[in-house]
C-alpha cells in the first residue's frame, strides 16, 4: 500500500501583510440553503441542523419551520469553501441542500 498523496491545496491568492488588502473586494458570501421535501421528518431536520452547525434547539427549529412553511431556508453563510463543505455535509445527512451567492 502506498501512502496517499495529499490533495493539492490552492495557492494563497494574497500575499501576507499585503497593504492592498483593503482594496480587494471581500469574498462574496455564500449561503447554504435547505429546501423543503416531503421526505425528511421535522424532528430529523431540526436534529441535523443542531448537530452539523451546533445551533441551539430553538434556532434549529425555527430554521426547520422556515423550510417547511416557506419552502427553503438559508441555514449557514460564509466563504465559498465553507459553504461547499456545509452543503456536502447536508447531502451526507440526506437533506436537499444547495449553495448560492448572497445577493
Amino acid at each position: 500500500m502506498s501512502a496517499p498523496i495529499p490533495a493539492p491545496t490552492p495557492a494563497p491568492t494574497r500575499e501576507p501583510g499585503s497593504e492592498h488588502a483593503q482594496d480587494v473586494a471581500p469574498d462574496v458570501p455564500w449561503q447554504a440553503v435547505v429546501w423543503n421535501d416531503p421526505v425528511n421528518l421535522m424532528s430529523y431536520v431540526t436534529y441535523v441542523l443542531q448537530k452539523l452547525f451546533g445551533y441551539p434547539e430553538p434556532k434549529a427549529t425555527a430554521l426547520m419551520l422556515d423550510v417547511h412553511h416557506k419552502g427553503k431556508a438559508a441555514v449557514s453563510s460564509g466563504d465559498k469553501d465553507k459553504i461547499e463543505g456545509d452543503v456536502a455535509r447536508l447531502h451526507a445527512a440526506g437533506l436537499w441542500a444547495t449553495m448560492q451567492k448572497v445577493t
Partner: protein
Amino acid sequence: VGHDAEGDVNGWKRSGRGTRVRLVGSFDARETSVLRGLLTEVRQMLAGRSADHPADELAVLTGIRTGPATRPNDRVLARLLPDFTAEDADLAAGLRSLHEPELIEAKDRAAAAVLDALPVGGGRVELRPADADTWRSTTSGWRWAPRWTSARTCPTPSPTTPAPRTWRSTSG
C-alpha cells in the same frame, strides 16, 4: 418536511448510562424484510452509479477520485446525490465531480452498517448513539425510495405528507 408520526422515534428505548447508552428497538420478520430489501436496492443503485464511472488510472495512482459531472437521470439517485447549486451549471458539474464519489461511499457505508445490524428474520436491534446517527441519516435516504421506484415520478412536495410509520417498534 414531513410531520413526525407517533411512534417514529418512540419505538426505540434508551438503556444504560454514559458510554454504555444503547438504543434498543425490535423489528418483526416482515418489517425486517422490507427494510433489508430497500437497503439492498439503494446499495445496488449506488453501486450502479459508481460502476458507470469507474476510477481511471490517474485516480488509482493518485487516490484523488473524481465522479461524473452530470446529474443522475434516475430520480431516486438524483435525490440521493443532489446538485450543489442551481445557479451555475458549471459550478454544479465541478462540485458534483469532486464530491460525488465520497458521498456515494458514505451512503453505501451507512446502508451496509444498518443492514449488518438488522437481524435476518427480525429481532432485537441494539445501537450505540453513534450508530443511531447512521441509522437516522440512512433512513432519510431510503424511506421514500419505494414511492419513487414504483412510480418513477417525483412526488409533489406537500407539507401534509404523513410520515410512514416504518420505525414503529413492535416491542413497545
